[in-house]
């Protein structure tokens, strides 16, 4: 067996702490659960990747590296943020380190590069990446997703913008890649089904030094929905405010565009932005209070969706291992258990899964406010039991093409 430097350290730490704190030596008798994390620690995606690792480490620390009576071996691998790297690191985790379950990866293209591979090697994977089809038209019995599909929260935003905010005309703006297309398509579909019209769709490239030319095209609309990710929302919102649109046209945001972890990089330009997210640091569940406190103590940060997603993923592993009892967390049985579990108390509220492995859970609508000098995303409405199919018929939903730049077609573009 090959043993990892990090594994040994953490294992020892975990074993030591649990033996001292719980006085439960029987814990060590059962075979350990090996959890591998695929994350990004180098390159442009590293910020979210590091938060992912903080989230799962926070969870494991809280559990003294013991889940359902089994010691945890935790191994973290850096994919470098590209598909080939994700594949090699998945091979490292599965073939060399023989992990029982993989958490991650971060980006959709990384996930799509390894879904066939984890199925062939019968290793369950708990994804953070949002690519719709992984839990839809190409659903994979070894993949579950406790975070959200790209459009899952955006459906909610479409509904909220049309029904509660009574907006009629919207512009969308997001990066020119699949995550952006899928988000904007979900918003457009629900918004237009409820009487709204998306009259402008803007797609700046992933790396855009200056958003001014795009913002200048927005024109006469009631709201702008943005789906930026990484550090782009910071740049975009500053430009939006600098050009004087902030007071005039309300800004709506997807989860990555207004993630709680971004708040410390933002200023007044973010105040008033309404966003949808599957997680909010503001949420009052017991586990969330513990999670937020631990993240602030250990890392001095407010957690966002990346770290919360991995914390919840850890809870899912715990629930599944618990469910299996003495059966041992192996391949197919673990994958099946992961599909069947439901977790009542997570930092994002109760979590269960549909038959495609995607989460059915709460989605929060938040407004960014300044409280005591700090920016906070205050929850103003909670949509419960939101499915990836929103309120649409599942069969009909799956019979349509996957959300893209061209689907659903934008009929009202001016």
């Amino acid at each position, binding site marked *: 067996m*090959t043993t*990892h*430097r990090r594994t040994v350290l953490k294992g020892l730490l975990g074993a030591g702490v649990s033996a001292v704190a719980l006085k439960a030596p029987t814990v060590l008798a059962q075979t350990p659960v090996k959890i591998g994390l695929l994350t990004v*620690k*180098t390159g442009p995606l590293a910020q979210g990747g590091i938060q992912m690792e903080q989230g799962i480490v926070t969870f494991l620390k809280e559990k003294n590296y013991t889940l359902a009576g089994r010691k945890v071996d935790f191994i973290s*691998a*850096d994919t*470098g943020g*590209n*598909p*080939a*790297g994700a*594949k*090699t*690191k998945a*091979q*490292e985790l599965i*073939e*060399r380190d023989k992990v029982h379950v993989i958490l991650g990866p971060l980006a*959709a*293209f990384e996930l*799509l*590069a*390894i*879904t*066939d*591979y984890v199925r062939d090697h019968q290793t369950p994977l708990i994804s953070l990446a949002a*690519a719709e*089809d992984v839990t839809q038209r190409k659903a994979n019995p070894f993949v579950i997703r406790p975070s959200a599909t790209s459009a899952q929260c955006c459906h909610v935003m479409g509904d909220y913008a049309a029904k509660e905010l009574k907006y009629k005309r919207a512009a969308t703006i997001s990066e*020119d*890649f*699949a995550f952006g297309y899928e988000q904007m398509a979900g918003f457009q579909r629900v918004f237009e089904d409820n009487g709204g019209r998306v009259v402008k769709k803007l797609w700046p490239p992933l790396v855009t030094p200056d958003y001014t030319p795009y913002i200048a095209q927005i024109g006469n609309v009631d709201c702008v929905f943005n789906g930026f990710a990484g550090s782009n929302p910071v740049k975009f919102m500053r430009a939006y405010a600098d050009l004087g649109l902030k007071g005039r046209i309300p800004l709506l945001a997807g989860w990555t565009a207004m993630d709680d972890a971004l708040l410390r990089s933002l200023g007044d330009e973010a105040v008033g932005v309404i966003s949808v997210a599957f997680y909010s640091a503001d949420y009052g569940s017991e586990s969330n209070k513990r999670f937020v406190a631990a993240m602030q103590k250990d890392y001095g940060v407010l957690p966002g969706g990346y770290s919360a997603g991995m914390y919840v993923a850890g809870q899912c592993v715990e629930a599944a291992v618990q469910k299996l009892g003495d059966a041992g967390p192996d391949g197919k049985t673990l994958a099946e258990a992961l599909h069947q579990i439901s977790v009542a108390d997570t930092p994002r509220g109760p979590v269960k899964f549909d038959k495609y492995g995607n989460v059915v859970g709460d989605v929060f609508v938040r407004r960014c406010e300044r409280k005591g000098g700090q920016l906070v995303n205050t929850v103003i409405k909670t949509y419960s039991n939101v499915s990836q199919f929103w309120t649409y018929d599942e069969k009909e939903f799956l019979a349509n093409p996957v959300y*893209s*730049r*061209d689907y659903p077609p934008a009929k009202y573009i001016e």
Partner: protein
Amino acid sequence: MSGNRFRSVGVAIALVLLATLPLWVGNSYYINVASQILLFAVFALALNVLVGYAGLVSLGHAGLFAIAGYAAALMLQAGYGHLAADTAAVVITLAASAIFAVLALRSTGIGFLMITLALGQIIWGIAYRWASLTNGDNGINVATRPAPFGINLTGAPGFYFATLLVFLLALASMAVFVRSPFGASLRGTRDQPLRMNALGYNVWLIRFFAVLFSGFWTAVSGLLFIYYNQFISPQVAALTTSAEILLMVISGGTATLLGPVVGAAIVVVMKNVVSAYIERWNLVLGVIFVLIISFMPDGLVPGSVRLWRWGWQTVRARLDGWISSPVEEHGR
């Protein structure tokens, strides 16, 4: 004479080690890493034809690599067999290489580099933006690996042996090419293009064929890549891939047979194995490159050979001096 025998013994040992690698490496993960080294070595060898022997630095080879990968992946997706898909991919890549050559060979040096860079970026742009064909950044999955002559390549050892075979063929073709009149004339166009021209050689045509030869092995490595990863997305065509392969060639030693292979091994091992232990592996890789450029500017392989010869000669000179003329020396 003894040098030759030395070399054949070395080659024999290397062959035996490579052929038995799955036996002594054991874990399939490391066998997979070896497969990756070999497939990138084929790519680096292909680029070395231009960089090393023709003196034409290309930054667009990732584009050709991706064309082969996408062509095969799309054909497979459309339901064609592996043989048809792979043959078509090679033919299409050769055609693309010809277009590259016609456009880029209008100049040499920086001009050639910039034109290939632009062409590579165009391929990247197409892969990224023509989503109805390429599925954009969500990429294309390749469902199965081929089974030539009924040999299953699904497992790590099977794929390794197939890659090894292709690698040895590529290496042998390079060895033949270097010794051939064509190889000599290509080196001539690198060192003395005007004189070659005056001697009646068609410099442009020689370079054109060199681009095709390079394109052929780039296509083959592209096929190995998609069969290895069973996935292709626009990242493959990105400039970073071209730059990485160029680094392999330069760090290992341009215009040498083994240089690109050693370079490929360094980069792949750093990226995949060392990164598991050192979080800042990028930094380590950077330091290694700086050290190579500082102390062995012509690359690791030629540098090491020089170091070895220097060491050997020093030792032998000492030995000779000590054995043949101790008296004389003391007598002085």
